[in-house]
């Protein structure tokens, strides 16, 4: 089974802090994704990566950046956390085949105070 592991389940940070959310997958997947989940808004794509060191902006990239130095690891970075970034963050990975489903981690609930 594919395993996607997000390093923190809950995180509390202060406004202005730099925040790192880490995600690791164990299935050698090329594609990795960061989504943000908010009530009533569903999942919105922040960034995705289709290869090491490659990244593409999703629908809501403002205030975020990403890093993919190794195939198995995809990091989401909040350069200067703000209260409107309080949310649930979900990492996912997917194989190369176009019909591959997404495999999700359990999420990181981030609170910015």
């Amino acid at each position: 089974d594919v395993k996607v592991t997000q390093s923190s389940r809950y995180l509390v940070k202060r406004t202005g802090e730099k925040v790192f959310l880490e995600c690791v997958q164990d299935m050698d997947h090329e594609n990795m994704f960061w989504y943000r989940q908010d009530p009533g808004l569903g999942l919105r794509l922040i960034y995705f990566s289709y290869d090491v060191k490659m990244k593409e902006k999703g629908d809501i990239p403002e205030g975020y950046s990403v890093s993919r130095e190794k195939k198995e690891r995809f990091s989401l970075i909040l350069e200067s956390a703000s209260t409107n970034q309080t949310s649930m963050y979900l990492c996912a990975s997917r194989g190369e085949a176009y019909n591959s489903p997404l495999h999700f981690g359990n999420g990181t609930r981030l609170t910015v105070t």
Partner: protein
Amino acid sequence: AQSVTQPDIHITVSEGASLELRCNYSYGATPYLFWYVQSPGQGLQLLLKYFSGDTLVQGIKGFEAEFKRSQSSFNLRKPSVHWSDAAEYFCAVGVEVGYQKVTFGTGTKLQVIP
């Protein structure tokens, strides 16, 4: 760009009753369609997917979904709901162009009453 609409934010059904969750998509070509389920405090788990062929697809946990091109719909059904089915359900559409972006609906929260 593709989009997904789940018109029901919240649905309540009695245990043992049948269930249908609605999903409508917008995309010019044949999309790839998914249903995911999210239990409280968990990530999303794939229930079923449609790419081509038979328009009625079977998934895990006794769920099925039917692709209707004429209605741009991919509704999820279950003949008899169990209390453990209480969760949030997300419909998603993927496309075979560019970076194969997957777009999610806003979700339907299912409550099951005894």
